[in-house]
């Protein structure tokens, strides 16, 4: 494991995980699997899954208290696979910062797995997604229902035998009353004789429902008793599209995950592919990626806070913050050619080196950020209305936040000092001097303020990166991954052949799995890629931070007022592109 990660991109490797305690408990039925690009992996028999996972969570030696992700692979086209489906759990331990992958084979005919929703709160939605996309059923799940596709959809689109372009029309939107019924049934204190209840539909086209989020709420007066979120209105089939495009062609699709900070998605994706290929990008490229990512983080937080404050009635902030965003747009446009969807990175480097205007214009941005942000902060930081509407509203405890799979600013607002840039640093983040802002109460106020503070911290990182950015190439020299320069293509046979090969056959990583994550604006953005050695990913799964965070929305909103729900929703910064993929 050591040599693999030593050559990997991440400076600091994940701690080793020993199999021993679990062998003591389960014997031969749990065993070590080949590591997933340096990440330790166990394999377990399907009937053991629930017990093994509970053991991993509760045992002192492991303490895997966060479920990072669950996904599934359909091995229909893989002749050697012992069963059709492979379910893959991805765990993370905040106390030890260890990670672990747990895999299990599931045969098609008994495609049923024990649900772990009682162990991890985010498992509820994750399992529903697998049911929706692959048709695996989870035993004991309270609400085994489609989540991304609509209720009249027939079949499971991510199965390899489902044709990609076979669309299915929906005649009428779901009324969600069945889910409300389930909530009523599960809640023992439900029948309180309140006959004044009203159900109200919010979204998916609603001024404060940023994008396409929908909630069905049951109200008593203005108080929300139950809240049923429905997602999937912006499900665009990222994973299926990735399976039919070659590795570099997936990059534009990643732009459209979290479209408020497109470059961070580009970087997250290519970093995973590079890990799979075991290549390291040149120094200059890393610094450029860091600067671009931090600029994007600032842009993302500007939109998040700007829009959130608009929902609270503070429109002026939006003008202040968005005009700063416009300035950053200008810099990105000059360097990447696009304002919003930049598609800037390539496997093995970036599209093009930055030009001579880059440094002065970024330095100018560094001067502009504090000015605009402070203007906005002056309007809100001690504003009585703002405080009344945010302090103590939608608070979540650190323990719940971890269980819901929170990462990023929302987790930090709940008081957990955890940032991938610090705990598992990549691209020299360990060499930069910056702080991680942490909240106390995990409420709306903390979430907004953590974002404001992170913008200042990003500026510190950018300034240091600019100072240290070396000269040199931005792309690796390996012609298997990076196109040769035009002169070479036209004047030498080697150049022409490698150009032809890369264009016609694309990048071909060796067969294997990889999971890699970066700290994106909303939290841990992970990519789980399975390669079968061909030019397209066999599977490319995204672990979006929003999906996990949004699954906790009912917990935050219930018991509050409708107006609070709006404030909370804004502060979670749910980006539909990333939520529904």
């Amino acid at each position, binding site marked *: 494991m050591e040599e693999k990660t030593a050559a990997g991109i991440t400076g600091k490797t994940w701690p080793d995980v020993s199999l021993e305690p679990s062998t003591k408990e389960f014997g031969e039925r749990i065993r070590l699997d080949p590591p997933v690009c340096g990440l330790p992996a166990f394999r377990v028999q399907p009937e053991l899954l629930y017990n093994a996972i509970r053991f991993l969570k509760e045992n002192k030696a492991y303490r895997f208290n966060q479920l990072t992700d669950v996904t599934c692979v359909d091995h229909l086209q893989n002749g050697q696979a012992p069963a059709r489906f492979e379910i893959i759990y991805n765990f993370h331990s905040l106390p030890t910062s260890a990670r672990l992958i747990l895999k299990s084979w599931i045969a098609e005919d008994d495609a049923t797995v024990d649900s772990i929703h009682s162990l991890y709160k985010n498992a509820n939605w994750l399992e529903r997604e697998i049911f929706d996309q692959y048709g695996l059923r989870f035993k004991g799940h309270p609400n085994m229902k489609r989540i*991304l*596709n*609509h209720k009249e959809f027939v079949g499971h*689109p991510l199965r390899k035998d*489902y*044709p*990609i*372009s*076979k*669309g*299915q*029309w*929906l*005649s*009428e*939107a779901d009324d969600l009353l069945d889910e409300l019924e389930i909530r009523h049934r599960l809640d023992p204190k439900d029948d309180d004789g309140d006959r004044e209840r009203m159900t109200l539909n919010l979204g*998916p*086209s*609603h*001024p404060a429902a940023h*994008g*396409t989020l929908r909630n069905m709420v049951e109200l008593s007066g203005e108080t929300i008793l139950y809240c049923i979120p429905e997602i*999937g*209105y*912006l*499900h*665009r*089939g990222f994973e*299926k*599209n990735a399976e039919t495009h070659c590795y570099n062609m997936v990059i*534009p*699709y990643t*732009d*459209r995950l979290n*479209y*408020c900070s497109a470059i961070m998605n580009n970087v997250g994706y290519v970093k995973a592919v590079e890990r799979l290929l075991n290549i390291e990008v040149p120094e200059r490229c890393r610094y450029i990626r860091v600067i671009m990512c931090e600029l994007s983080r600032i842009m993302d937080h500007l*939109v998040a806070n700007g*829009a959130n404050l608009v929902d609270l009635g503070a429109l002026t902030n*939006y*003008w202040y913050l*968005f*005009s700063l*965003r*416009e300035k950053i*747009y200008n810099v990105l446009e000059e360097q990447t050619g696009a*304002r*919003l*969807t930049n598609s800037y990175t390539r496997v093995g480097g970036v599209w093009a080196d930055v030009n001579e205007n880059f440094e002065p214009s970024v330095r100018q941005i560094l001067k502009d950020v504090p000015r605009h942000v402070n203007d906005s902060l002056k309007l809100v930081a001690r504003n009585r209305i703002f405080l009344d509407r945010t302090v103590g509203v939608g608070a979540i405890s650190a323990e719940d936040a971890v269980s819901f799979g929170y990462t990023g600013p929302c987790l930090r607002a709940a008081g957990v000092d955890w940032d991938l840039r610090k705990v598992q640093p990549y691209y020299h983040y360990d060499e930069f001097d910056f702080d991680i802002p942490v909240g106390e109460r995990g409420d709306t106020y903390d979430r907004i303020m953590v974002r404001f503070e992170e913008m200042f911290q990003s500026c510190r990182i950018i300034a240091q990166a600019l100072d240290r950015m070396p000269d040199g190439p931005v792309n690796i020299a390996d012609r298997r991954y990076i196109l040769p320069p035009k002169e070479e293509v036209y004047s030498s046979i080697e150049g022409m052949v490698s150009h032809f090969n890369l264009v016609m056959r694309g990048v071909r990583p060796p067969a294997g799995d990889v999971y890699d994550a970066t700290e994106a604006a909303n939290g841990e953005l992970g990519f789980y890629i399975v390669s079968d050695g061909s030019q397209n990913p066999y599977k490319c799964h995204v672990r979006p931070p929003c999906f996990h965070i949004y699954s906790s929305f009912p917990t935050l909103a219930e018991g509050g007022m409708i107006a609070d729900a709006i404030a909370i929703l804004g502060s979670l910064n749910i980006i*539909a*592109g990333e939520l529904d993929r």
Partner: protein
Amino acid sequence: MRFLHPTPGLSGIPQEDAEARSREILQRARIYGEDRTLTDQMMLTRLDSVVNWGRKNSLWPFIFGTACCAIEFMAVAASHFDISRFGAELIRWSPRQADMMIVGGTVSYKQAPILRRIYQQMADPKWVIAMGACAASGGFYDDYCTVQGVDKIIPVDLYIAGCPPRPEAILGAIRELQIRLERQPVRV
């Protein structure tokens, strides 16, 4: 005497006729000695022109923003590009108060019935702009969940190319719609 936006030939009255008629009215007014009052206080025009003039300068957009394109629309609404220069800044979130729908973003099959319903809730006259590749044609999402262009479910007046379109393109589309509005007869 001033003619407000004389647009020839569209409401059935040829330009010359309209001018001749107003000359006639003026003539009659002179006979009755009310010349001054009339020229100072009255404007003669066609209903089409004056209604269209009002409509085109106060388009009330409804943003059906689902995805990345909606973020670019935010830029259009913000201070730098400033959509209010074209009289279309009063962004309504209720279809009943809007007359220009801008579909900005990918529309999935799950979303389709909702888009259709919202379109039907808008009062006539109404116009639809399909902003960006996704709304126009499904964009590069040729897959199991994306409607291949919103014109499959609602009528579209204008398409804007781009992924996402630049803010200038959106403003250009609004201008284009305004020019069309000038020419169109008032529907009854």
